[in-house]
């Protein structure tokens, strides 16, 4: 009922069927397909190669890579999302457990960039910030996970075991 019911055990709805994108670092090939699938996800185009041709992509999931280690980073949809609490406009909120952006309200002040401990919210060309919203608008499975050839990112509910 209250989307802000975060962080307190009693009414927290975070744990209920909350699937997240999790990272298996040791299986990441650093191929960056997740980045491309992410960038392609809401272009509305049919063909990825055509849609992304000659474009410098700015995906919402990003690979970090160094000395043979690589892994993907995207929004963790935290239980206590500092980006949401810090948001000066009310443009970030938790909707059904997903940290979501209201592009109409966002003024790109970057307070969320200041707050996010993962570096998972970033500036974008659109006038609003961008971050992973779990492809909720695309329905079902996040595109990055679908496109990962090695299960280095998975879409799972891992909260159960810990609650």
């Amino acid at each position, binding site marked *: 009922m209250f989307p802000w019911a975060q962080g*307190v055990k009693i009414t927290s709805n975070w744990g209920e069927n909350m699937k997240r994108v999790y990272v298996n*670092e040791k299986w990441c090939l650093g191929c960056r397909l997740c980045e491309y699938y992410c960038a392609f996800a809401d272009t509305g185009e049919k063909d990825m190669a055509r849609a992304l041709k000659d474009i410098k992509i700015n995906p919402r999931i990003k690979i970090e890579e160094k000395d043979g280690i690589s892994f993907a980073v995207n929004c*963790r949809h935290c239980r206590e999302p*500092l980006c949401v609490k*810090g948001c000066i406009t009310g443009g970030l909120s938790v909707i059904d457990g997903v940290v979501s952006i209201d592009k109409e309200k966002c003024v790109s*002040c*970057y307070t969320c960039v200041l707050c996010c401990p*993962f*570096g998972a919210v970033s500036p974008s060309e659109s006038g609003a910030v961008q971050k992973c919203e779990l492809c909720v608008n695309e329905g079902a499975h996040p595109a990055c996970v679908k496109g990962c050839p090695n299960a280095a990112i998975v879409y799972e509910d891992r909260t159960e075991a810990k609650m």
Partner: protein
Amino acid sequence: MKYVIIGNSAAGIGAVEGIRQLDTQGEITIIASEPHHTYSRPLISYLLKGAATEETMRYRAADFYEKNNCKTIFGVEVTKINEAEKSVMLENGETVPYDKLLVATGSSAFVPPFEGLDTVAEKFSFMCLDDSLALDNALDSSKSVLIVGAGLIGLKCAEGILGKSKSADAPSRAKKISVLDLSPRILSSILDDDSASLVQSHLENAGVQFHLAKNITRFEKNAAILENGERLDFDILVLAVGVRPNTALLNGIAEIERGIVINEKSETTAPNIYAAGDCTQTTDISDGQEKIMALLPNAYIQGECAGINMAGGEKSFTNAIPMNAIGFCGLSIITAGNYTGEDYKEAEKNSQYKRLFYSDNKLNGYIMVGNVEKAGIYTSLIREQTPLDSIDFALVCEKPGLMAFTKTAREKMLGGERK
């Protein structure tokens, strides 16, 4: 349970959301002197600029009070708290009883007692929606504006007046925009010399004139007379010298130092009375000092924390630090913490600047201008007081990212639930 919240802004709204996490039934009454639906105070400059409307600047949805079952008394000031009777008195003489009370009264503009200020016809503060609307009304392309104060509020006001468009032929909202400050550098509370001059020239290019290290001795109608004898003419005066916490309601009731004294649960020293946001003082964990941190994220988090505790929960807010994200005409600035200790510096290049400050195995603070991506990684190192020898500090200085953490730390962050 009767909850009364004085203040309808970040801290007050945080408290409503905190209370409703635990108590969906209790009676919440929000009282505010401002007559508006809750709005984002920082967006008043965006309203001026035309980048936000009164509707998009709402801090919460139109049905917020209804959904959260809150009674609202807006446009009415609380004049007194009667601690013995557990009630608050309104300016219209009515009283409202409480079981738990939150004071989230924010801050007000500080207006120094300048000589001759009363002779100035068009003068404004820049603190609230009504100030912004009044200034908007007064602006005219034939009028010069003088803003006193080159801090966050003064400069955001200047940016708002500059308008939406940066193109030279766009109609300007003012004939001239000048900003004066006592300090030799702009944004002196959050920038160092180099970054300040970088931001200053950016603003100068956008059309703002600066008079720094200047002191006003008096006003004479449409002019400011400076200590050095100089005379600055203006049509519209904006005073943005500083803010003062609104603590008066708790005079003689709870301890007040610079701001209202609260503990980590947002409790004041008076029973059943909590306080949160700009009206309070908070420990800055980056340097251990008590400060007023007039910042929205702190206000919200303290308010939410108060709300949870008011409703009988257990919540502490223990790691406040000063932190700012602010932009001017396309140039972004993010800063946090304090600027003591040794530094790592990436000298100015293409309007970009980065400097980190550290000592005793901890990151104390940082300044980033231009490229602010992943700044939050630094903020987190300060807030969590992460021992720098537990990460690859050289790497993180150069490139903020999770790569600098150990594999185990990363596994926790990316592979499972984050507490």
